[in-house]
């Protein structure tokens, strides 16, 4: 008890410690890539294709070169002469850096200009004349698979159609047997529309090649600086020790800043050619139409059900649209990410998933947009299927979930697709949520409202998702195993510096990592500096995305602290003149077991490491830990939303949002809650307004914030947060990760609520986004509204 109290005081585990990074951000003293100015720096701008699919017949750059202040104009042809026109993607495909033969999506990079300032560079881009011969555009999987469809990737040998992959997982025969025994089969077809993570800060880089040292330094908006270093070493054929990637403050990431983008590569080549720093800062349209999108996937799902509500089996087929290049940032073994983590919280005997990925004339991506590799889609499909099945069976939606939950005493639990979930109290989370929303009362209120012609609805979404990729047996990106790291150096006065292989982008690592060290060593969090993002100083790590920081890098922080504590124990024994076995540890202090008053603090041990170490002991108090997690962590979320739908307009208002998150042990409750509220907002965004669509010519509708709608403070609902804590049994401090749970589990709760409100119409599905006109169409026609929202043009 004393320890717990002391621990909060020093900013340890469980303290809602104010964030240290705020000190610079509230003063406008953050250091984002665009804030950095280097001597003799030049500026780069990119010319993008206006067409989605076209052969390039000519590029005339002469007028661009004629503009004063222009230093370099690059085209695909010039890149090809250096063998740099194409680069490898993170999914073993290739992607054009600058188009050579043809353009394959609207917004593709065609040329770039480097000039004395960005205005001149933009002028020069406009002076480049490109002639195109248009080709038919493919904008969805159906067109991609159609007989006689134009071949998008004619650059690839042995690519005779538009299929990227066919992949399957699960037990096909067992699932067939389950379906043969079913009393009822519930079927649902769904589309998860294309979305863009859209951090407010766009991508950018400053490449600085120094001929005198042969060293390349790149300041870059990246969530994974070490992966970038490896990629640059391979693509540019530069020695890895001569590459330094620095990821400074990031204005949000959400998965958008994981891939390698052509702009980075061009700025690096330009700097090498010009021997001057070259800055590239993407504009919003460039970011929205060319960088990593999320989702864009179709599902056909079937559930085999017994009359009493037991799920016997699940069958799923997905068709995913990967755009022109397969550049998903995901573990190499799993072609459709962790889609097969679906239904992990339910006890289901058999399941089978087939997945087909296709090329289209759309931007490449399929990034893990605020989720652990397609789990957002997996859990959305799961929870929409759950609601449809409950309705088909005529069983209450909460009760149906409860009947199928994995029980608390059934962990670790093997899911039908082979994952091993670690722990959870699913029924308890649901109870907390139902209690908080006042479930029974709301059902009564809903019936009363119906009598007055008002449409109220309640939607539930419960899910466990896999975080913390991953164990090195199964998880790698381009062959690099997905572990992470931390390095801790304790100075002689007991202050410390910690560096990790992760990279914060708003999650507050500078605050929370220090809290883990404080918990393990008793050094006050305020005495610990945290640094990330510089590959010259940070230990190798796979970066921050897929909610993997706390499960992996956070675990490494605990482990390195324990290594340091082990050495401090030896120093304590020396100082206390007893043997190590006679020493006990309490927060921040070693003492003699038989004489508890006789002790030394961790700070005294630190001083001894530099001034009074025993004979033969290596001086210093520091260490490094690489953490390879034994398993994924499995947090659980229960999201309950109530809405009122206006039958006259299809407009729906959110009445209440209740979130119950079990993310294991909470390091900093304030930050955890901040992550959950941010995640819920992205869930609301996707359910209500945030999507990207394309017209028949492949024009991207959503190329700016007037067309790509993000919720403001005005529309965004308020949130009521609750918690259940089930520590992860294998994580050193029992934490599970939380950054993405609400984004993953949330969307289905909003959609289920709206569909619950209009259930009497017989409508089973409206695909996201639930724009008022789509809801109105469903209300008035009584039919499902499916697929991406159509693009209405003047000539229709």
């Amino acid at each position, binding site marked *: 008890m004393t320890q717990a109290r002391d621990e909060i005081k020093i900013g340890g585990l469980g303290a809602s410690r104010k964030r240290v990074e705020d000190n610079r951000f509230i003063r406008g003293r*953050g*250091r984002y890539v665009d804030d950095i100015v280097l001597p003799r720096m030049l500026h780069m701008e990119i010319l993008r294709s206006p067409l989605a699919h076209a052969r390039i017949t000519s590029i005339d750059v002469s007028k661009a070169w004629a503009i*004063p202040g222009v230093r370099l104009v690059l085209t695909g042809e010039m890149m090809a002469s250096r063998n740099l026109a194409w680069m490898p993607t993170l999914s073993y495909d290739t992607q054009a850096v600058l188009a050579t033969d043809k353009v394959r999506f609207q917004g593709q990079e065609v040329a770039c200009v480097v000039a004395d300032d960005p205005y001149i560079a933009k002028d020069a881009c406009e002076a480049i004349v490109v002639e195109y011969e248009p080709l038919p555009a493919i904008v969805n999987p159906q067109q991609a698979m159609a007989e006689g469809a134009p071949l998008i990737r004619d650059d690839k040998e042995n690519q005779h159609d538009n299929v990227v992959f066919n992949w399957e997982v699960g037990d096909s025969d067992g699932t067939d047997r389950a379906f043969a025994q079913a009393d009822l089969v519930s079927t649902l077809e769904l589309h998860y529309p294309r979305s863009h993570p859209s951090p*407010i800060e*766009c991508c950018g880089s400053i490449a600085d090649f120094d001929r005198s040292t042969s060293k390349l330094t790149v300041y870059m908006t990246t969530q994974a600086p070490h992966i970038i270093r490896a990629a640059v070493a391979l693509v540019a054929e530069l020695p890895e020790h001569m590459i330094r990637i620095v990821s400074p403050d990031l204005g949000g990431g959400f998965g958008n800043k994981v891939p390698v983008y052509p702009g980075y590569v061009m700025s690096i080549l330009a700097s090498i050619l010009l021997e001057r720093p070259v800055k590239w800062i993407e504009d919003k349209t460039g970011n929205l139409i060319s960088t990593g999108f999320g989702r864009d996937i179709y599902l056909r799902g079937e559930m085999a059900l017994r009359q009493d509500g037991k799920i016997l089996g699940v069958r799923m087929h997905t068709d995913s649209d990967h755009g022109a290049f397969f550049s998903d940032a995901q573990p190499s073994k799993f072609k459709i990410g962790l889609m097969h983590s679906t239904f992990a919280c339910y006890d289901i005997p058999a399941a089978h998933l087939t997945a087909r990925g296709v090329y289209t004339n759309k931007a490449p991506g399929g990034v893990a947009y605020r989720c652990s590799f397609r789990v957002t889609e997996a859990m959305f499909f799961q929870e929409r299927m759950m609601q449809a099945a409950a309705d088909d069976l005529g069983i209450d939606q909460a009760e149906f979930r409860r009947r199928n939950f994995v029980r608390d005493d059934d962990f670790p639990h093997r899911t039908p697709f082979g994952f091993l979930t670690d722990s959870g109290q699913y029924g308890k989370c649901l109870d907390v949520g139902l209690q908080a929303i006042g479930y029974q009362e709301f059902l009564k209120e809903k019936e009363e409202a119906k009598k007055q012609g008002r449409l109220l609805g309640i939607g539930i979404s419960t899910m466990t998702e896999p975080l913390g990729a991953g164990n090195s047996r199964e998880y790698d990106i381009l062959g690099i195993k997905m572990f992470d790291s931390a390095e801790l150096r304790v100075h002689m006065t007991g202050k410390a510096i910690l560096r990790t292989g992760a990279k914060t982008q*708003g999650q507050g690592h500078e605050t929370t990592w220090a809290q883990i060290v404080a918990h393990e060593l008793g050094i006050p969090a305020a005495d610990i500096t945290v640094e990330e993002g510089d590959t010259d100083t940070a230990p190798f790590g796979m970066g921050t995305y897929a909610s993997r920081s706390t499960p992996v890098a956070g675990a490494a922080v605990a482990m390195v602290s324990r290594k340091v504590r082990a050495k401090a124990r030896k120093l304590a024994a020396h100082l206390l003149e007893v043997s190590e076995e006679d020493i006990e540890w309490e927060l921040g202090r070693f003492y003699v077991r038989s004489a508890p008053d006789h002790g030394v603090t961790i700070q005294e041990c630190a001083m001894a490491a530099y001034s009074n170490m025993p004979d033969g002991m290596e001086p210093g108090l520091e260490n490094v830990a690489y953490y390879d997690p034994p398993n994924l962590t499995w947090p659980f979320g229960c999201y309950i939303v109530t809405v009122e739908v206006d039958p006259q307009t299809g407009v729906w208002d959110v009445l209440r949002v209740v979130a119950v998150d079990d993310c294991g042990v909470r390091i900093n409750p304030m930050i955890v809650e901040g992550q959950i509220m*941010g995640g819920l907002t992205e869930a609301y965004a996707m359910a209500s307004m945030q999507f990207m669509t394309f017209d028949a010519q492949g024009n991207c509708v959503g190329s700016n914030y007037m067309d790509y709608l993000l919720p403001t403070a005005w529309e965004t609902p308020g949130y009521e947060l609750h918690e259940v804590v089930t520590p992860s049994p294998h994580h050193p401090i029992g934490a599970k990760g939380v950054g993405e749970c609400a984004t993953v589990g949330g969307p289905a709760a909003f959609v289920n609520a709206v569909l619950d409100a209009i259930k009497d119409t017989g409508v089973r599905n409206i695909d996201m986004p639930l724009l008022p006109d789509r809801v109105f169409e469903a209300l008035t026609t009584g039919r499902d509204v499916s697929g991406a929202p159509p693009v209405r043009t003047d000539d229709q």
Partner: protein
Amino acid sequence: MSGLNEEIRELPAADVPTRRVSITVNGEKRTADVEPRLLLAHLLRQAFRLTGTHTGCDTSNCGACTVLYDGTPVKSCTMLAVQADGHQVTTVEGLAGPSELHPIQEGFSDEHGLQCGFCTPGMMLAATALLRENPDPTEDEVRWALSGNLCRCTGYQNIVKSVLWAAKKLQSQSAS
């Protein structure tokens, strides 16, 4: 961050027509010769090195570039520098004195009203303008006043709390 130097390129190439602008930025009179097409956000960031004003969307939607123009919040990414000639501009750097914090800054830190920090300066300036007009706003009034500023991290709930925190602090300051 190490290895950073400043090279201020206030003047465009010699053959480009320029206009001299004189703007009071954060209480200090600043002068620059600018191309007529130069955006105010770029003048502040590049010539004056006030990088707390961020550019996010280029279309006035996100509000990361919000500054106060004669006390009124404007999107500096869609305003020309020459339009600010002779006017007062306040950026995040001018919210408080060198070793001080404005209550709105304290509020954002205290109520965890920021995560990545990119939208924060614009949010704080829009909120400051609100609190000058309306020292005791309701939650709805705060949400409406900030609806021209986008945040992708927080979900706004803590931003609203931060503004209400600052309102309370400002009221108690003016009462005492």
